[in-house]
């Protein structure tokens, strides 16, 4: 059974008088443990796809099954619950809460989910160790380097042990070296069985994924994983 199953997905935006088909008749299946890169020019629908996979956006038509469960019909509160337990996000601009320390930022998903403080402390300590951030626990985001910030963001994305990590240009704001570091972290997570979907412009980053999807005008132009 695939982790993600999209069937006949449509997403239409109304821009003034014209209608834009951000996604049209999209069918896609991603198995558990896959490492997928989504590429394509700006406006091809990559980000819309990612938002849709992350339940931040709803399709206008079609069905989205996550772990065999139809999630398009869930209420907003139920979708929040699915985001909380099953999905982790990594953003290009990190999206850390500026007034919270690194440790508090990592703990944020657990805080929102109502995990007891004691358990939070233990899991945050382990995550800080895993991502080599022990000395940065009490630093605020503006006291961290870009690489450290993205490591905090990845630690935050994984703290709830999600099945799926969605990364939107995770290396876009980083230099080559720190970018590589972040990619290796994501690949290590994939090595432990977490499904990774990365949206990127960067062909070298895309080439490292085991499966490449190329999008254009809201359609899948190329899927390396599909037997031709």
């Amino acid at each position, binding site marked *: 059974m695939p982790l993600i199953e999209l069937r006949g997905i449509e997403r239409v935006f109304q821009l003034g008088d014209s209608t834009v088909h951000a996604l049209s008749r999209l069918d896609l299946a991603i198995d558990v443990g896959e490492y997928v890169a989504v590429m394509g020019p700006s406006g091809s629908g990559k980000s819309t796809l990612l*938002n849709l996979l*992350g339940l*931040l*956006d709803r399709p206008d038509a079609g069905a989205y099954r996550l772990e065999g469960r139809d999630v398009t019909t869930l209420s*907003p*509160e139920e979708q*929040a*619950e699915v*985001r*909380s*337990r099953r999905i982790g*996000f990594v*953003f290009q*601009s990190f*999206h850390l*809460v*500026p*007034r*919270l320390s690194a440790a508090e930022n990592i703990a*944020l*998903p657990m*805080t*929102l*989910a*109502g995990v*007891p*403080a004691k358990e939070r402390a233990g899991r945050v300590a382990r995550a800080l160790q895993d991502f080599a951030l022990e000395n940065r626990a009490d630093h605020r985001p503006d006291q961290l380097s870009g690489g450290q910030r993205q490591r905090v963001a990845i630690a*935050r994305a994984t703290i*709830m042990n999600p099945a799926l990590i969605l990364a939107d240009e995770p290396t876009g704001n980083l230099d080559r070296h720190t970018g590589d570091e972040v990619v290796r972290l994501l690949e290590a997570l994939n090595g432990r069985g977490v499904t990774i979907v990365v949206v990127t412009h960067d062909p070298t980053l895309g080439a490292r994924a085991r499966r490449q999807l190329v999008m254009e005008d809201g359609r899948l132009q190329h899927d390396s994983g599909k037997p031709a």
Partner: protein
Amino acid sequence: MRPADILRFARVAATGYPLRTALSVLAMSIGVAAVVVLTALGDGARRYVVGQFASLGTNLVIVLPGKTGTGGFNPATAITSTPRDLTIDDAAALLRAPAVKRLAPLAVGTSEISYGGKLREGLVAGSTAQFLEVRNFELAQGRFLPDEDWHRGSAVAVIGAKIREEIFGPNAAVGQLVRIGDRRVRIVGVLKSSGQGLGMNTDELVIVPVALAQAMFNSNTLFRILVEAKSREAIPAAKAEVLEILKTRHQGEEDVTVITQDAVLATFDKLLGALTLGVAGIAAISLAVAGILVMNVMLVAVTQRTAEIGLLKALGATGRTIRLAFLAEAAMLSTVGAGVGYLLGHLGAFGVRLAFPVFPAYPPHWAVVAGLTTALATGLLFGVMPARRAARLDPVQALMKH
């Protein structure tokens, strides 16, 4: 999200923008402080006046010549005199009323009092020995007027503390002969200093027998008859009896006004109570303004933190969690504001009491409770709209804003 975490999150969020937070706390605290101080002033005025009336004497029924149109207390009748005479014999006749404990006729006028080359203008009150008990006066030295025939008018006087001080200085006053108007009068007693007593400052009063006063001012009219009822319950009976007796004596014509201290007191109590309420209402407007300010601050906070709200949603926060977090922040701002305002208000009332020791400027409890609850309620009420707006933000749109 656990309640403790929501509170902590809201606190960190509020302290993350110190200026904004300080301003809204300040606005709220000024509102609450205004309620506390203004009601303290209003209620202080009420207590002051009531206290002044109480110091007039207890269970008093006051008879004044002339008839006012309505039964209510008209401040004008307390000042103006009327042509209809009220005589010493009228007063003496009232002693027959069973509900009357004691009474004192009162004739007043101003005259010059002189001694050893010093001259002073003073209010001269003509009355009887019972005046002392009826008005709750206390003597500092000597004795009061002699209990004699009311028509006799011995040449004696009792003076107030200030008059004594000004005319005799450090020398003994009791036993001295002074001149009041064109009469020579012996000082027999000095009143204890008691301060202001509703327009009639007893410290500057000269009390002589009523017949003497009438002779001095060449009139046989009384200014007032002060009647003390046997008890508080006997006041209505005393009033009715007094009216009946005077009506009989005045050929069946009801040409006097009888007011009770209770009625006067109740009128002032109501009047000043309403004043306090009005002032509290005005102060409450500033609370509403503070509430609107909290709403604005929270709306700005929602706009400022749009990206953060999008992030929280992406991280699995439900709309309810986000609503609660913003409501908690608004509640926190108004709670702290209300607390600070409460302290400021009490400090202000304390300052007023320090500056005017005779003025009992204590805020009434109802005003304090109402002020604090209004502050919290407006804070929460005006926090609802921004919180709902935050919860309804579209996460995709919110995340795109940096």
